[in-house]
């Protein structure tokens, strides 16, 4: 059964010099004409099954992050449909999308995005704080599983980059998500740490039964996945999509 189904998803940004705004059109704001807009994402169809692990290959600037942000509900599309776990994301208001993200999605960023004023444990707890609530025992268990059982009280600055990414992985899984989005999760890691982090992400997602949608331009990362799609062929906005 499909966990995520996307149809006719379009997202554009105003062209630079015309009041460009990366966050795009605000809800309710009328669409401007095509000449003043730069289409970033235009996807006819896409789906991901529950617990499936899929890698999307894409170069920098190809709209991968925008795509993930649309799926996460951080951005609102100009048009199209995103159905996640049976819920139409585009029909939700901002607060509804926030709740969906807090309860259903885990997000792993290239730059980890840990809060520097929070300890490792507190960062992991943040991942569940805005959804069903903090479960400290689960946070502790996740840190143990990513090999940081003895680093609960460490602040990000006291951890290596590899360890920071492992905290980010634990945080992304802390709300028991059905879908984990990973945006170049190994981009800031050396080869050994990248391999370990990737293994960890896939392994923990598998154990937790979460689907994984990972975007990367790194062939070594992409080669680890049984299923891989080229974002250039998926995104019609790039002009290279297959019909």
């Amino acid at each position, binding site marked *: 059964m499909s966990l995520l189904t996307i149809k006719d998803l379009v997202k554009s940004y105003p062209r630079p010099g015309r009041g460009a705004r990366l966050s795009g059109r605000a809800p309710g704001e009328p669409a401007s004409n095509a000449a003043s807009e730069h289409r970033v994402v235009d996807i006819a169809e896409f789906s991901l099954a529950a617990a499936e692990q899929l890698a999307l290959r894409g170069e920098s600037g190809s709209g991968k992050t925008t795509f993930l942000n649309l799926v*996460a509900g951080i951005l609102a599309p100009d048009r199209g449909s995103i159905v996640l776990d049976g819920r139409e994301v585009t029909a939700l208001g901002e607060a509804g999308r926030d709740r969906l993200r807090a309860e259903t999605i885990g997000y792993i960023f290239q730059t980890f995005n840990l809060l520097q004023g929070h300890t490792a444990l507190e960062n992991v707890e943040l991942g569940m704080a805005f959804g069903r609530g903090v479960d400290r025992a689960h946070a502790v268990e996740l840190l143990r599983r990513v090999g940081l059982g003895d680093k609960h009280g460490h602040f990000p600055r006291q951890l290596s980059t590899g360890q920071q990414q492992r905290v980010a992985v634990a*945080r992304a899984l802390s709300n028991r998500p059905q879908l984990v989005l990973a945006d*170049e999760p190994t981009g800031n890691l050396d080869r050994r740490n990248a391999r370990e982090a990737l293994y960890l992400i896939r392994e923990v997602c598998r154990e937790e039964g979460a689907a994984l949608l990972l975007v990367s331009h790194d062939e070594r990362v992409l080669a680890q996945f049984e299923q891989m799609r080229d974002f250039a062929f998926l995104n019609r906005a790039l002009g290279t999509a297959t019909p």
Partner: protein
Amino acid sequence: MIWNLIYRSLRQHALSTLVTAGSIALASGLLLTVWVVKTQSQAVFAQTNSGFDAVLGARGSKLQLVLNSIFHLESSPGNISAADFEALRRNPMIGGAIKTAIPIAVGDSFQGWRVVGTVEKLFAEIEYAPGKRYALAPGGRNFKIGEHEAVVGSFAAKRLGWKLGTTFHPQHGVSEKAERDHDELYTVVGILEPTSTPVDRVIWIPLEGIQTMSGHNPLAKAEISAVLIQLRAPTAGLMASNLINQSGGKLTFAYPIGTIVAELFNKIGWFDQVLTLLAWLVAAVASGSVLVSIYNSMSARARDIAILRALGARRRTVFGAVVGEAAVIGVLGAALGFAVYAVLGGAVAAIIQAQTGVVLEPWKFNAVFWWAPATLVGLCVLGGFVPALKAYRLPVAETIAPVS
């Protein structure tokens, strides 16, 4: 959750939190001190009359007369002859209205502490406050007329380190740098228990001691500086005031004492207003510092806020966290403000007691204890609204990561 966010943010920005809370504390302490001293000193000074209704003295300012004879401040407006007072007392319209009359003579001191001559009756019969009579510390007694004996106010005795049996030569003049020592040697025979009135700051000797002190003008033997008067009825005071003050004679009748003291506060009202204005300005600047402190750190916090939003925090949650942080800084500052007030208010009360003998009670409940901290916290919350709005409007996708 919101409290966790606030706590962790305050912990992360501990130094700026402490500095900002410190400035709020200073403002709060200053405001409390100015307000309490203002309201309490007006009330306490206006109530301080040492048990008397009126003062009779030389022609001049009523305020000066009251300040000199009741508060033992300022210089005396001059002496009156004992005969003039006796003549007044024989006046059937005034004499009958006077219940008790205590003459005093001033002009000498010891190391800045005023030496005042009076009669035994002051300590034997007068109630300095309703139901309260002067009491002497164990072992002491009242001075005797005709003897070189002194009864010393509790505060003066404590500061001078005097005990029963201590001897001293009164000095001419009332300034700290007295002109010369008089020849007479006085002995302390009694130390008064504290009364929280200006009497505590005075060295009391028999009236004729001042009148006949070596070096004084021989004419002073028949003069007194003022007469402290208890009246039989308030209406008698008004009548005496009209008769004496409008007669154009040599005397001034200062009545009622409380109203005359209130005039002093009217005269220095502008100073009071300036102090209050200053305290409010400090409060406004301190509250502004909350705004600036949080606002300035917003660029550094923007990423954190975007991360929280990406993790599912709603706009209203981050808005509440920022406003809550400002409120907590305000509450922390206001609480510390009481510590500042304890030091500042205590110091001011001690200075006022040392200078006037009037005792303020810094911890007696005053409405300012709740409205000043509440107003400061409210101002801090208002200050927090600006950065909170910035957090509310933060574009998450732009802030959190470069778009690929």
